[in-house]
């Protein structure tokens, strides 16, 4: 991979990580009054995929959508405005952290009901196929969503209709706090999914470049065969299911498990790789500082922006005709 591309991926990782680190720092100020489901630790997946499909894909995400949103749009300005409940946010401040969207940038929304975005993604892919747009739809969801019946209805119909759809299971092993071992009666998810007429890929690297290339390869193969793709990508949720804290004294997983993932953190890994390839520390540091400043400006602008006026409460409930 070229240094330029590797650097672009790093920029995506850094932005997503840094935005969440600012959330962690500022959340106690109680200016962001919205429950946070943090992506931290899982950034390589959306960054790798969204960069691989840049401009050619629409995505749908879940309540854990900070990283997918930022990877797809890069728009931390509207991101922070939305988290602060301001009119300059993605939805007038009405959606908060769990329902980020930016249709013009190919972010078709995020929902807070586990699994509920998957069939919507099937519909979006169906429209793309019928309209001949040539675009791919990416559905991000967690391993918990696979337990929902709607996942199986969706993978069947996407396979049956041969839709250009990438199912991305961000497999962090936990549905809220329940591990897969307490939720799944079968030995291999991918074995069952392979039983559908689709392409299946697995990866445990947590590495943004690996995921980038995997996506390119898979989408090329899927176009050839005219079928959907299923990705099962292992990852680690650094923080608790909800909120900005690590697990703390919660005993649902071993601290060592998280530590071993942190030891091969996707952001640090990519940074070290770029240094090895000859990118200077100075260039990296400059970019990081510039990003930090830009984020700080976004936060300041969000705080300075207006809160929605009372009439906004009712706007958009029904589809107004003009």
């Amino acid at each position, binding site marked *: 991979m070229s240094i330029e591309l590797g650097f672009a991926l790093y920029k995506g990782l850094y932005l997503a990580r840094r935005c969440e680190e600012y959330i962690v720092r500022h959340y106690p100020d109680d200016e962001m009054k919205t429950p946070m489901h943090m992506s931290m630790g899982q950034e390589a997946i959306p960054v790798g995929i969204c960069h691989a499909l840049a401009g050619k894909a629409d995505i749908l995400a879940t309540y854990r959508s900070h990283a997918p949103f930022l990877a797809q749009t890069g728009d931390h300005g509207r991101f922070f405005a939305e988290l602060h409940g301001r009119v300059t946010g993605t939805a007038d401040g009405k959606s908060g952290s769990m329902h980020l969207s930016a249709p013009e940038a190919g972010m078709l929304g995020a929902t807070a009901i586990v699994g509920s975005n998957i069939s919507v993604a099937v519909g979006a892919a169906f429209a793309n196929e019928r309209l001949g747009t040539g675009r791919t739809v990416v559905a991000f969801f967690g391993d918990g969503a696979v*337990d929902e*019946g709607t996942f*199986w*209805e969706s993978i*069947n119909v996407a396979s049956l209709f041969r839709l250009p759809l990438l199912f991305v299971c961000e497999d962090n092993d936990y549905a809220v706090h329940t591990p897969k071992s*307490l939720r799944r*009666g*079968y030995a291999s998810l991918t074995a069952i999914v392979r*039983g559908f007429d689709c392409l299946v890929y697995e990866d445990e690297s947590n590495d943004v470049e690996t995921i980038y290339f995997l996506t390119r390869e898979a989408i090329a193969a899927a176009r050839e065969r005219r079928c959907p793709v299923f990705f099962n990508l292992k990852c680690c949720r650094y923080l608790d299911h909800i909120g900005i804290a690590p697990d703390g004294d919660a005993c649902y997983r071993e601290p060592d498990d998280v530590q071993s993932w942190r030891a091969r953190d996707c952001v640090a890994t990519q940074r070290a790789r770029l240094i090895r390839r000859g990118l200077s520390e100075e260039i990296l540091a400059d970019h990081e500082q510039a990003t930090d400043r830009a984020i700080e400006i976004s936060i300041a602008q969000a705080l300075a922006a207006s809160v929605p006026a009372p009439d906004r409460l009712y706007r958009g409930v029904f589809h107004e005709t003009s």
Partner: protein
Amino acid sequence: MTDVTPDPKDRHDRLFRTALLIRLVEERIIDLYPSDCIQSPVHLSIGQEAVAVGVCEPLQRNDLLFGTYRGHAYYLARGGDLNAMFAELFGKIGGVSKGKAGSMHLAAPAVGMMGSSAVVASAIPHAVGAALAARVRNTNQVIVTAFGDGATEEGVYHESLNFAALHGLPVLFVCENNGLAVHASLAERQAYRMIDQARLYGIPAETLTDGWDFLAIADATDALVREIRRDGRPRYLEVATYRSREHVGPAEDFGAGYRRRIGLEDWQDRDPLIQDTDRIARLTPEITAEIDRAEAFARASPWPEHEDLLSDVV
């Protein structure tokens, strides 16, 4: 419904008689339907009788079975009362559910027929839950859920299969594969193979292709039920079968364009309820008399009254 091994000829006769009873009952329904005395949509089992007959034979009385809206065959195969069934179809107070259930919701808890839902796949989790109760209460029951191939496309089917496999529950999943969901073929609906998928869920699964052969189905079910009773874990049986009538209603619909009559003829060539003319001739008069009595019972039974309208709501 007995552990004593019966004389093979008696057993064949007995199963044949039940299958023929189902066939003749449904043919009577077809005859009666134009007179509008059965004001309830009927989903007929004609062609699929052998599955219900074979599956129910090895079950013990306290084993439970959950059916579907295509449930006449299971109701009768489990030993549901014929008079009460006809009265139910007629909407009379003598019906098994006082005329409130109609054809789609036949039930007979006394013989382990735990109800039938008109919403595809919705009874599958009920069987899993009943099996969970069997486990918690140590009842040694086997719980059967019978469903069509269309039900396997529903999400709740996957949720149920997974839960049964996860907790190792004593459920027998019986897929009656008639190749049709309403009017849609398997190829139009499924990008997977049901039997392979069930196995990948970790559930031992078996396929039978001769869906008219009630003896083979009974033998296969008997073996699976014994395994379930031994280890308490789920099993899966898929039986290829044939729906000879329209999805709902009494008629044939080979002119509708979604399937061809030739399949019917292939089936009929092998259907013992057509081919085994000796047994048919021997058993029909007695069964017909039984159906006559049930029809008369239904006609004589009173209508439910206003007070029945609001009973059993909460």
